[in-house]
């Protein structure tokens, strides 16, 4: 084999390896989606989404209503806390702090906070909230909000950076105050990007289990009170039921998994649509 042939062979092997890595990544995705659709699809019904969770784990049949309500309630309250605070923090970083030392520290620490394991957030809220006020949906929301905050900050700041300086200068030149410029010019120009970043953060939080394990307790009935009483969520129910040896419990876990994945994928797709449809052209 001459040199050219050897080089071509190495190149062919390399290309093959790269195509193989795509296949390797696609296989588990296809397998998981297939099983969740097949096993979850045969369980899901209106009754499954609305009825209470059976008292006996070994009984067969529907009931994930409380978990659906819990997931929506807990994630919703978390969103109400994390998104406004995250946007304000990002405004501080990009509009006020810029490159000063405090802003740099906050930016780095916010990135570090993105890497803090979600289970640590759960333990944290357990120590500062649950020990005093007991299990509640709100405690879970606090833990999820801690998780979402740095994600919202990061995505919002990246979008704010894209807003052209000319817009701000034009507004300031018209005599608008700094705050007014930000609220009426900068944020509206960035609204689609901010929304899609927030939706992705919500999608991430909705699927989280670890922060909820020590914060929301366990419930079998619908609890719409965020502040009082134990609650439950789809992810927590999947975790519990997956470990049980009963066919009925495992079926409910698959059904809950399908519900959760549909919810998360809907949010992700919505985020993409928002980015595409409603983006104000930034010139």
């Amino acid at each position: 084999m001459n040199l050219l042939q050897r080089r071509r062979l190495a190149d062919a092997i390399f290309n093959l390896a790269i195509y193989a890595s795509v296949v390797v990544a696609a296989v588990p995705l296809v397998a998981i989606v297939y099983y969740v659709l097949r096993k979850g699809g045969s369980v899901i019904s209106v009754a499954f989404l609305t009825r209470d969770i059976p008292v006996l784990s070994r009984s067969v049949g529907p009931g994930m209503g409380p978990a659906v309500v819990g997931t929506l309630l807990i994630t919703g309250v978390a969103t109400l806390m994390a998104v406004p605070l995250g946007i304000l923090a990002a405004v501080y970083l990009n509009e006020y702090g810029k490159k000063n030392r405090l802003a740099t520290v906050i930016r780095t620490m916010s990135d570090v906070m993105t890497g803090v394991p979600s289970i640590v957030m759960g333990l944290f809220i357990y120590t500062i909230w649950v020990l005093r006020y007991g299990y509640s949906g709100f405690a879970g929301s606090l833990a999820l909000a801690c998780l979402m905050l740095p994600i919202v900050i990061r995505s919002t700041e990246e979008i704010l950076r894209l807003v052209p300086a000319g817009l701000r200068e034009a507004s300031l030149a018209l005599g608008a105050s700094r705050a007014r410029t930000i609220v009426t010019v900068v944020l509206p120009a960035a609204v689609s990007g901010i929304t899609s970043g927030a939706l992705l953060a919500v999608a991430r939080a909705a699927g989280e289990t670890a922060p909820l394990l020590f914060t929301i307790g366990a419930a079998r009935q619908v609890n719409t009170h965020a502040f009082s009483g134990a609650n439950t969520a789809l992810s927590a129910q999947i975790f519990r039921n997956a470990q049980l040896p009963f066919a009925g419990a495992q079926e409910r876990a698959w059904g809950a998994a399908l519900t959760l994945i549909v919810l998360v994928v809907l949010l992700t797709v919505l985020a993409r649509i928002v980015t595409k449809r409603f983006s104000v052209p930034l010139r």
Partner: protein
Amino acid sequence: MIAAPSTTRPPEAVLPEAGLPGAVGKGPLHQGSRLADQTFRWMCLASGLLVLVVLGLILFSTTKEALPAFRHEGLGFVTSTNWNPATGHFGALAFIYGTLVVSAIALVIAVPVSIGLALFMTELAPPRLRTPVTYIIDLLAAIPSVVYGLWGILVFGPQILKLYTALSSALRGVPLLGTVTGGPAGRSIMTAGIILAVMITPIVTSISKEVFATVPRDQKEAAWGLGATRFEMIRGSVLPYSRGGLVGAVMLGLGRAMGETIAVALVIGSSPAVTAHLFGPGDAMASVVANQFGEATGTHRAALIGLGVVLFVMTVLVNLLARRITGRAEHRLAGGKR
């Protein structure tokens, strides 16, 4: 008419504080605007500071609750392998070992695949194949941890056990490999590592992709111009340029892997021992907290919170290091462009 500023100072000089004197207080819209301006500014600053406050509180409050366990065990908390809640022994070394081994397995599998995916998207793929591959990665990232765990415990674990058993009996007696594959179980360290690999692939891929995108075009074209094959171009131009960034990507993947809880808790098999049997059950820090917290009280609960503290410190260090490495690489790249 619009109230134009009367001076022609550059915008930078106008930006600080409340704007131009002539423009303030012209109408009802500006009433109290200075107060509102300052209030808004302080609200933004407070929200920014919240990040620091929360991080500080995490460390303070979890450490405080974990103190009984730290006092009880002393340094043994991280050096002893004796974890037995019934007898009041809380040595977490086996879990630290488990976390590191599972993360290492995940990285060994995920890093080559992720770099392959990133190269595929930046260098190899025809444009119409790029979007589907992006979807694959987005979806892998979107699937919740607990669903990976559910699939792992009910489908993947039982299926791969056949492969483990076959490997185990084929390699019995072989010095190193025989030990590693001994005592196979569906819920094992290896299963957890494989599932974790799938879970960290998206983050390693997307960062590697960003790193590859910073390689200057002329460097690649110089390689093409010399008649390099694609493999030689990537080896000679792309990879050397991206080394620092790739190390950062791997570190971020490691941080994610160490903190991943639920999927690992479901598939690792919960056996608190330092073992060389990677195909057998083990346990990791995050998963032991998830699995034992429910029935834990007193010192046991404090010890589990203590595991959270150790995990927090480890992941923060890994993340800071990763940021420094990528930051330095970016710095070098920015300098190199000139």
